[in-house]
Each structure stands twice: as C-alpha cells, then as structure tokens.
C-alpha cells in the first residue's frame, strides 16, 4: 500500500523544485507548493495520477505583518488508498489571487467561495466567486487578523446591517488547563497573560 509520504515523494519527482520536501507532523504529511499559480496542475496530477479523489477542505491563514500574508491549505484525501495529504501555498496581499481548482474537484466551488468570503483571497477562473456566508455588498473580510473581533458597522439597504458588538472588557477566552472546568471556562482575560 502506498503511503502519503510516498505520494508526496511522487509529487516532488514530478514537479521538482516547485514542491518542498515533505514534512511530517504527528503522522500527517504536508508539502508546500512554492508557486501558487501552479496549484491547479499540482492538484490535477494529485487527483488523476496519485488517486486523491476527494478534497476535504480548503482553508486560509492570515500571517498578518508577514510577507506573503496569506497561506491557502488544501486537505486532500484518497478514498481508495485511505491516505491524506496536505498541500500549502502562499499568496501575497498585493497579488491576492490564485487559480481555482474547481476544474479538478467540483466540491472546491463552495470551499473557495468561503475562503474568498472570509479572507478575501480571490480564485481566478472560479465559475461563481460570490460571497457564501455574508451577503453581497458586505465590505469586509471578517477572518483577517486586522478585522476587529467586535465587527464594524455596515449597512446594505434592504439586505442586512451590522453593528459593533460590546466587548465589556473582553475578549472572553478559555485557557488550556488541567484544572477543573470552572478554571478553563471562557472569562474576561488578556490572552497574553493567560490568566
């Protein structure tokens, strides 16, 4: 049976310098794709040649203050081989776009719309790149690090409005703790002190 590490190596053999050395963490294999504009070809190869027939999720990360600012993460799964592989790629804030993989997996349609809606990363060639959770006309991308937790006031007449939420000294956060649940439960605290 071919393992995910071997699949990652096959990916590297095919694309060479574009694919990083496979990284393993807790049994999960991740490879980095150096050029985001090649993501469709890499995914096409992973599906047709390696048998990754199922795209579990596409997620995005905001490394605010760093360059490139955004990471896009593809969680691939092969049902026939029972293996999973993670692809990562980077997108800069100025460029802010990468090609769609909807031509490879149709399920990427909604995943990419969610990534666009929450993080503002654009997917070129997407058949219908509109907001999926927020409404058309909402001006912000709420999961970006520079977007405040309490939100911003907006209004799209006859569609929806938003206001800022009262924080009351928050944010209310949990802490990792081996103490009882009373100690762990969300309280008004500064995440830096962990108290």
């Amino acid at each position: 049976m071919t393992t995910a590490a071997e699949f990652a190596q096959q990916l590297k053999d095919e694309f060479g310098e574009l694919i990083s050395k496979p990284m393993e963490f807790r049994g999960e294999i991740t490879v980095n794709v150096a050029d985001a504009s090649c993501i469709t070809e890499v995914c096409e190869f992973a599906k047709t040649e390696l048998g990754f027939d199922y795209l579990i999720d596409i997620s995005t990360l905001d490394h605010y203050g760093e360059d490139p600012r955004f990471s896009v993460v593809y969680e691939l799964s092969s049902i026939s081989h029972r293996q999973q592989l993670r692809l990562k790629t980077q997108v800069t804030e100025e460029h802010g776009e990468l090609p769609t993989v909807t031509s490879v997996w149709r399920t990427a349609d909604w995943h990419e719309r969610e990534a666009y809606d929450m993080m503002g990363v654009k997917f070129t060639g997407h058949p219908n790149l509109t907001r999926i959770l927020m409404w058309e006309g909402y001006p912000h991308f709420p999961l970006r690090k520079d977007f405040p937790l309490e939100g911003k006031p907006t209004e799209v007449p006859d569609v929806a409005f938003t206001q800022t939420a009262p924080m009351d000294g928050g944010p209310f956060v949990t802490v990792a703790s081996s103490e009882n649940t009373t100690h762990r439960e969300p309280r008004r605290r500064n995440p830096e002190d962990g108290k």
Partner: protein
Amino acid sequence: MTQKTEIGYNSKVEGEVIHTTVDAAVNWFRKNSMWPMPMGLACCGIELMAAGCSRFDISRFGSEVMRFSPRQSDVMIVAGTVTYKMATAVKRIYDQMVEPKWVIAMGACASSGGMYRSYAVLQGVDQILPVDVYIAGCPPRPEAVLEGLMKLQSKVAKEPWAKQHFKPTAQ
C-alpha cells in the same frame, strides 16, 4: 349548576347575563389563546418543540397552535441566535403578523446576543423588535418557556384595551 366555580357565577341566580368590563373580557379572550409563531433559529428551537410536546404540554396555556404563517399568529417566540443575515427576515415576518402581536425573546442569544460577541450576530432581538418577555437560559428549559408565556399572559391581562381604542366622549 352544582359545581362551585372560582368566579362564583350561578346561572340560576344571575340568569344568562354576565357583567364585566370590555378590557377584562377582551384580554381574557386574548391571553388564553395565544398562537405562537415559532421563530426557531438555533438550539432553543428544540427546547421550544419540547415545550409543545406531551411532557410539558404548552396547550395547557392555550398556545399549542404553532402557526408557521405570521398572518395567523399572535406571539412570535424568537428561539435562538439571530444573525445579521437573518435579522431582516425576522423583522419582515414580525411586520407580517397581525395586530395585536407580542414577542418573546427566548434564551441568551435572542435576548442579548449571548455568547456570540461577534461581527455576525445581532446583539439582542430587541434592537429590531419590541420584546415583551425575555427568557433566560442557554437554552432555557421548557418550564422556563411556560413561565415566560405565563408572564406574557399576565401582562396581556393588564392591557388597557378599551382606553386605547375608544375615546371617552365629552359631555
């Protein structure tokens, strides 16, 4: 009439006539047949369903007729998290309800946004609707829903209906 009733009405003595005030009669009609509009938006909706089932039996208070049409309902029970995306729809459904109408905000989310101090959640449905009764809990138990309904009934019982609708004529 052998059985003694609470109001002490005896048809043998008093005949076929009952004396009361318009307010008392109208409010009595209203408060004992409040048809809810179940605005179930989250987990509170499940507790609302439990309140309507046989164990808790909301029909003991005349509210078993859950109407999914706002045109036929008297009290909107907002049960759950009202997101900003849903807020316009909730307001529109409230506007479609016929007067007189009341609103119960069921649970922490509908009352104040609850644990969702967030860009996506309306911080209490009272920002768009006139709420009559707030029910605490996350989610409230069905008993709490019934308690809230009884609170609303006692509020309706005190409404000066006649004063609102008829002006005293100047002599």
